[in-house]
């Protein structure tokens, strides 16, 4: 039996007095495509940010490929992970942000080559060759020399995806990567995600409000509410026949708001 690539075990997270996650557990299998859906404020972003080590957890454990993310073994026990351990663990994980977070002072290609050169010691020529392949894959090779400010939102997001891919993470986290885009630009980004889904064996966690896309893309859908998994299942069951009252209400609202399912 294969081991889960991500094993989240009873994690808790508060911001001040506000508890977002309270003993959440979940597992993700290698190569699995997971869609995380749920109402605003339910903690979807927080989960991805925790996996990317952008937020710390208050309690619980996370293992990536069997190795602790926030803890490391010492003298027979576990202690809090230090920066070096986190650096090692982050190599397995990449993230694409809602607002792209490109480096505005660098050209498209420099955005993509920077991290492989700095963190993996890849030579410039090799990094650029690889970057051009990735930019080609996301349909942005013609804009390699452009600055981010010269691009549309959809183009920026495709560059951001290429940038994250350049480090060859095993797990990719996508946080509402089309939410900030004009409707006519959403498609071009979703097409790239499709390609990744079909052509790579990355494990992908996708937070989205695009229910139609989640339905087609995901192997499994998790519905979150108030930091808890209310319901999970295959996309077909989840969307056509949700069991839980809260899931039904949420999906009804989303459809009423004009999202395709």
């Amino acid at each position, binding site marked *: 039996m294969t081991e889960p690539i991500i094993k989240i075990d009873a994690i808790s997270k508060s911001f001040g007095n506000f508890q977002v996650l309270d003993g959440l557990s979940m597992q993700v299998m290698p190569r699995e495509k997971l869609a995380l859906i749920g109402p605003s404020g339910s903690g979807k972003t927080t989960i991805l940010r925790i996996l*990317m*080590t*952008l937020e710390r957890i208050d309690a619980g454990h996370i293992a990536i490929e069997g190795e602790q993310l926030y803890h490391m073994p010492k003298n027979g026990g576990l202690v809090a992970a230090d920066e070096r351990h986190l*650096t090692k663990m*982050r*190599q397995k994980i*990449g*993230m694409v*942000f809602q*607002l792209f*977070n*490109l*480096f*505005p*002072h660098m*050209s498209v290609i420099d955005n993509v080559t*920077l*991290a492989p050169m*700095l*963190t993996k010691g890849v030579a410039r020529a090799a990094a650029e060759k690889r970057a051009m392949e990735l930019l080609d894959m996301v349909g942005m090779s013609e804009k390699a020399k452009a*600055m981010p*400010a*010269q691009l549309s939102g959809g183009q920026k997001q495709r560059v951001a995806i290429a*940038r*994250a891919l350049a*480090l060859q993470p095993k797990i990719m986290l996508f946080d509402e990567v089309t939410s900030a885009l004009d409707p006519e630009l959403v498609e071009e980004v979703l097409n790239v995600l499709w390609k990744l889904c079909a052509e790579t064996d990355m494990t992908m966690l996708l937070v989205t409000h695009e229910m139609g896309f989640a339905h087609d893309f995901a192997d499994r859908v998790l519905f979150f509410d108030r930091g808890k998994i209310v319901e999970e299942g295959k996309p077909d069951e989840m969307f056509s026949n949700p069991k839980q009252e809260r899931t039904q209400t949420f999906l009804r609202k989303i459809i009423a708001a004009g999202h395709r399912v």
Partner: protein
Amino acid sequence: MTDWSGYLSLILQGAVVTVQLTVMGSALALVMAFVAGLGRLSRFAGLRWLATAYIEFFRGTSIFVQLFFAYFVLPFAGISLTPLQAGVLALGLNVGAYAAEVVRGAILSIGKEQYEACIALNLSRWQCMRRIIVPQALLVMLPTFGNNAIELLKATSVVSLISLADMTFQANIVRSQTGNTLFPFATILILYFAFAMIITFSIRALERRMARGLDGVRN
């Protein structure tokens, strides 16, 4: 008839000293600004404390006292400086303290999403600072750095007090030798202004160069 060209060349000799002080003082100020500005943002309390102490001390005491200290007191500690060295030291440390706050403010103005992109790309803190944060913050700092450099230029005249023959010092010599006030002071007025303009336009040119592409304008 007074021979003004001889006196003019005297003032120009002083102008060379003023330029030297400005250039070397600004270089030192720039280094101190980054050392202390980044120091104030350090994770290490000791570094933060040192940087704060430096900044508050040099902003809280006058440039006169700092200059006199560098020139007259340091020799008792076995450090004898030439007037030029003492001038550069005092000016550089003084203006550096002000510019350190500019560095700090500019770095804090860069959004946290840039730091988060760094973490997601597994850059180290230092790589993130050097390659992502500081280059963007530099553009924010530049205009104020220009003001700091002009402040420094104007402050260089304090060195006449330790008898370094800068532009103001020479103008005073010319005044006392000729009894004429208009010629020497009009001359240095124009020269100070010209130097300040050179600083202003250089900074603007640099700013335009660095901002290229950031605003989405093709070029």
